[in-house]
């Protein structure tokens, strides 16, 4: 009777998604080969199986796509907002209808658990399109004022033109939604480059655009590497650049764009502080710490990768946290009971491994639960470091993996000082049952998103963005419109 309750495998069926052996670039409403015929392979990070071969965009393709987007811009931006909204609503509904297929696809290409793609990514993707569809015919009332003279498009306030958008691999379809939904709602046209390790969901989205009858050239998708992204940023006929990714690349983009009249928003790295006071709801704080750093294997720019815990409850909280980590289920991302999936790429795994080795070398104490890693694919066990100080590399550099650094503090002032003592400023969490403390501390934190008694909660109505080297500009909410409007 007391034998353990072993969960039998419960894999989501792969048969709901039909991945073609090869895909082209999506330009002007058609799938086409790259001008130089280059292709690259995309693999499933959990098995290293090749999923498909994808055309690799180069400079000539970028130029073709930007010209298609420019051509489409005139009519698209002249449409009444209510007409653009219809397309966005249609896209949102198709995403909902195809959500199971897209969730499985995303899990295969990215390595994250189906539980997350099914319950977080896809619902948020659809919600984002629904939300911005609602804004499309209300831009005059978004608080950016009405222009006194109509621009050439007649829209009021006016869109910028062609948006060049570059997105990362950690939330491929969700980042696409964050970029494309506000751009289209405001009347811009788009050239989007998905990350080279996760091109598939963007290509499926291209198919959804066709299914929704979106006019040709309004959305163009260019799978490719950094060179394609650089060409897109540098293209003279791009009016707006939106980038989510690493701080290093973000700085390069800022240098490229400097001196042009391109409008720029950057969503970069983070080293979020999750602050737990001694009067916190402990069990829920433990859940929030786990969600904060192990959601999507910690490959989240707003991850709560630094745990700041009040000294008086350090031991008790760490015991609870370790017990909880021991129940995490790592393995096949398609299994519905999997909590921790695969790391997205060999390159990322190498980076996480190097940084954690550095953490040990610098004297922090490493701990992981007993955890068997699969034989193939890219895997990293949930890890936490104690005895970490502000001076340690693992407390300063973004690891972008399932690695938590635990630091302590004694007073609220010290917590705030340590939380702010980072080059980043994207997210933070505050755990306390005392409402006045939440407000007092939140007011002093320099982070774009602050969660209280929760973590990693997203909603299209809420603006998201960073301070300092975490970038500038806001995505989501009413604020997200501004990045795509000439106001």
């Amino acid at each position: 009777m007391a034998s353990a309750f072993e969960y039998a495998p419960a894999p989501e069926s792969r048969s709901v998604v039909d991945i073609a052996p090869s895909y082209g670039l999506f330009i002007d409403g058609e799938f086409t080969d790259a001008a130089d015929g280059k292709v690259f392979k995309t693999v499933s990070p959990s098995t290293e199986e090749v999923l498909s071969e994808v055309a690799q965009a180069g400079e000539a393709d970028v130029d073709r796509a930007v010209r298609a987007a420019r051509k489409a811009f005139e009519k698209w931006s002249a449409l009444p907002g209510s007409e653009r909204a219809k397309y966005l609503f249609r896209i949102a509904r198709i995403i909902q209808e195809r959500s199971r297929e897209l969730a499985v696809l995303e899990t295969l290409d990215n390595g994250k658990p189906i539980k997350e793609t099914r319950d977080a990514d896809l619902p948020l993707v659809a919600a984002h399109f629904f939300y911005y569809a609602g804004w499309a015919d209300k831009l005059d009332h978004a608080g950016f004022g009405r222009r006194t003279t109509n621009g050439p498009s007649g829209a009021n306030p006016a869109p910028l033109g062609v948006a060049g958008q570059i997105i990362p691999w950690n939330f491929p379809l969700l980042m696409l939604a964050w970029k494309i939904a506000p751009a289209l709602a405001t009347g811009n046209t788009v050239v989007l480059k998905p990350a080279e390790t996760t091109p598939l969901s963007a290509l499926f989205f291209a198919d959804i655009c066709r299914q929704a009858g979106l006019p040709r050239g309004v959305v163009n998708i260019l799978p490719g590497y950094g060179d394609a992204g650089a060409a897109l940023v540098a293209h003279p006929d791009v009016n707006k650049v939106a980038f989510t990714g690493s701080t290093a690349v973000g700085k390069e983009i800022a240098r490229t764009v400097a001196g042009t009249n391109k409008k720029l928003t950057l969503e970069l790295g983070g080293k979020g502080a999750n602050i737990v006071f001694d009067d916190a709801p402990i069990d829920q704080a433990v859940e929030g710490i786990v969600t904060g750093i192990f959601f999507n294997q910690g490959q989240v720019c707003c991850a709560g990768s630094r745990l700041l815990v009040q000294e008086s409850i350090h031991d008790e909280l760490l015991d609870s946290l370790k017990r909880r980590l021991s129940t995490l289920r790592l393995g096949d991302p398609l299994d519905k009971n999997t909590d921790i999936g695969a790391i997205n790429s060999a390159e990322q795994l190498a980076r996480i491994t190097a940084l954690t080795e550095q953490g040990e070398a610098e004297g922090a104490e490493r701990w992981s639960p007993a955890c068997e890693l699969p034989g193939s694919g890219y895997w990293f066990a949930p890890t936490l470091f104690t005895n970490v100080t502000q001076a340690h590399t693992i407390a300063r550099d973004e690891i972008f993996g399932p690695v938590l650094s635990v630091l302590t503090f004694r007073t609220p002032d010290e917590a705030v000082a340590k939380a702010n003592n980072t080059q980043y400023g994207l997210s933070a969490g505050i755990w306390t049952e005392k409402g006045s403390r939440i407000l007092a501390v939140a007011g002093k934190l320099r982070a774009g998103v602050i969660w209280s008694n929760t973590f990693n909660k997203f909603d299209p109505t809420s603006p998201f963005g960073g301070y300092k080297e975490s970038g500038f500009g806001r995505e989501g909410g009413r604020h997200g419109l501004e990045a795509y409007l000439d106001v």
Partner: protein
Amino acid sequence: MPTTAPTAQALVDVTASDSTLRRFLHGLPGVDAVGLEARAAALGTRSIKTTAKAYAIDLAISMVDLTTLEGADTPGKVRALGAKAVHPDPTDRTAPTTAAVCVYPDMVAVAKEAVAGSGVKVASVATAFPAGRAALDVKLADVREAVAAGADEIDMVIDRGAFLAGGYLKVYDEITAVKEACGTSARLKVIFETGELSTYDNIRRASWLGMLAGADFIKTSTGKVAVNATPANTLLMLEAVRDFRAQTGVQVGVKPAGGIRTTKDAVKFLVLVNETAGADWLDNHWFRFGASSLLNDLLMQRQKLATGRYSGPDYVTVD
């Protein structure tokens, strides 16, 4: 310090007076309702299939306190219930027996006879169930009668009025008196009626209060009010028994009761047990379901797993 682990001695101290008890209970970590419910819902998405499902169904059957608590109960009805508890599926003798039958005190003797020799326990509600609105003497007489008639387990209700008014020591004293009346022969389940306590903070405090007073089981509800067992309140009580054992070494059982009607629900509760309190609680000595209609759904699902076909309600016994 609200979160310092009390030593065994400190736990004796906290029950010394109303004020020490109050200070201790109000010093327990708070419960964030949104986070608690989100965690319960997340565990509810676990997918329990094939061999795991078969294990869970048999485990759940073995944890059922098969219950009849109606004014219209008769000896005939109770005998039928006893027979069902001993052989839940008359067509398949491999089905486990239920943990217990649960009846009113005046039916204990009948129930005892009906399950004699089977290992199925007889549980009796007592202490002026379900309202608990009676003098302590009356409540204790109720308990003594049930124990004298052979009850193996007593399901008492706490005085919710006293608890909500802050009279923690009164509630504590009542539980210890009932525990004493149970003697060594009967295990005590303490029902909080969580639907009437209303907040999760109260449920955590009541859980600790019950355990401090010597409860062998803490139980959510009577099944007689609007809100009975929920995944969230059961998760919270599982956290409480887990923490209590960590601090005192004493293991206490948990019994959600009321509103659990389907196999799917029962399996979700077992997932909560497995991933919160742990495998030590996956045994009917430490976890029970207070239910009546649940058993038939478990049996139908069991037949489905064995045969590959769904039968109908006419292929399980109505009582």
